[in-house]
């Protein structure tokens, strides 16, 4: 089954099968991101630049800023949720995310 993925509202939402599921303005923790040198990047999610899928993992490239060190820019692919049996579950917002390095999206 294919999943329809889109960045909507000028980068404010990731929509999965025509439902807005993942929003900007959250704080995400990233392990070993390429955005900055912090051991744990504390990222303000300001804008989604692209969305893709790798297996069952939905991933996005995010414009934002690390509030620990102040570095800003666009990240590599970061997991945002999983598709299981046709339904999408967002990754727990407090979880530490590990950037992936590829996406077919």
């Amino acid at each position, binding site marked *: 089954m294919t999943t*329809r993925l*889109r960045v*909507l*509202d*000028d*980068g*404010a*939402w990731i*929509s999965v099968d*025509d439902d*807005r599921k993942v*929003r*900007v*303005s*959250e*704080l995400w923790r990233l392990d070993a991101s390429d955005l900055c040198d912090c051991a744990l990047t*504390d990222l*303000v999610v*300001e*804008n989604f*630049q692209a969305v893709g899928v790798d297996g069952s993992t939905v991933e996005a490239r995010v414009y934002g*800023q690390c*509030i620990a060190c*102040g570095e*800003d820019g666009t990240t590599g692919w970061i997991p945002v949720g999983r598709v299981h049996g046709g339904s999408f579950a967002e990754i727990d917002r407090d979880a530490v995310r590990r950037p992936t390095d590829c996406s077919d999206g």
Partner: protein
Amino acid sequence: MPTDVENWKSEVYGNEVRDRLFEFAEAGFDSIPDDERDAWFERFKWWGLYHQRNGQEGYFMLRIGTPNGVLEPGQLRVVGEIADEYARGPGTNPIFGGAYADFTTRQSIQLHWIELSDVPAIFEKLEANGLSTQQACGDSWRNIVGNPVAGKDGQEVVDAWPVIRELNETFKGNDDHANLPRKWKVSVTGSADGSGQGDINDLAFEPAYKAVGGGEGGVDNDGSEDAVGFNVRVGGGLSRNEPRLARDIDVWVPPEKVPAVAGGLSALFRDNGDREDRYNARIKFLVDEWGPEAVRETLQDEYVDFELETAGRDVREEYTYNTGSGERNDLIGVHDQKDGRNFVGLNVLVGRMGAGDVLELADLADEYGSGEVRLSQRQNVIVTDVPDDALDAFRDEPLLEHYSPSPSPFMRGSVACTGTEFCSLSIVETKNRQVRFARWLKANVDLPGGVDEFHIHLSGCTASCAQPQIADVSLRGMKTRKDGDPVEALDVGLGGGLGDEPGFARWVTQRVPADEVPGAIANLIEGFAAERDEDESFRAFVARHDDEELDALVEPKETDYEDPMLHNTKRTWYPYAENDAMEDAPPAPADD
């Protein structure tokens, strides 16, 4: 690969969206197929309808484009009546109540909580009264801005109002210019005050003199006659952390050729703008890439059929609007018109006015002026055509206690965008917060002697709808952690402004928790008062300090200011609802 938006636009866009919009309105919101909603919402923008954010399903923001901010006699009353009847929804704003109009930084009007089923009736009423929502949003010619008192202003070089009207008539509903790569924001100013803010628009016409045979106007040193017209600048804009000032393309045009040049540049953008990447689509990026000379050359070679003149003598040195210079930095207060009457600028805090007040203002405009009202780019209203002998009585009207012609500097200087109340992009709550800030600052902070204006602009995100980069203090939505918990925060920028030498604010202090911002501004102003050179303006003060020194002056501090919206207002369906959780969002409105 073209973007989703480009694909949707290539299927249906522009004028033809209207029939489908009306069909959906007739059949009800639920008649829009789920998998076509996003495409239709994108197309509806062209007709001024913007679906509100998640949790507010089935409700729309409706934008009325009032060219140059001009509301002819009677039109403000129509807006007030529509707001009163239709702009009510399940959420009530604790400061502004249940039905209100927002006057915007581009001289337009926004109403919220509009239901699709009401759209045909609203359009009918608007259009019967000469108003329209056409192209108020979406990828085409947006509302044309300028000096709102064009045609009346005592400081006018050339009357831009007939030019703006002609552009509006030519390019609204014009299929050749209906689908551009991105929004197209045009400013045409005829006054020497800079109040059209051309520098931050995609295309700007600014007053200028040119010695061309037989023209009218002033007389040059060499005795030749100068014609009045406009110099042209291209590629300004504030969005996305990539602010640009419009660039001089070395062209002067007489008023009658403005439509040809404006149409040529709009076509150049249509054909050459980036349709593969919306973040790179605005013409400011094309000007970056090509340079202003190539823009001029392409315009001359491919898009106009007459020889372009080189730029004329501008009057930028005389600009005062949003410059922080102390003279006509805004259009608040009583000012002379050419015809001996007066225009009276009234302060509308953060641009929002309850529907009842809108109706009352329309009555006052009838009683004391000609009934006409105009809107400025600082979210304020201007009542025009008030004779000298009516001024005192007008000033004594109770409504003017709330919308004052001589407000406190902090009330006067406040501009705020829509924010999390309705906008998907926002990171923080904005309008109500800015009202709370202004009230606290008014009660607790004194500006140093002789400073009677201080501009603070708050935008919820980097789109910069509140034009934060051109204020004394720029505030932009952010997040930070306070005691480990995520809270709404603001980045603080300083010293921006327009004028002969425009400059954007420098972001000196990042991520101040929102409840510490008033204290930070109080400390900053205290430092300014202590270290100021004689009667130095705040902007000049900022200019001679480096970022580190300024960051030290902006000392965040908790005060007795309390911020009820520090939590993530984005996770609510409406930040001010009693049960604000997304799960408690009301269903889409049922069809009447």
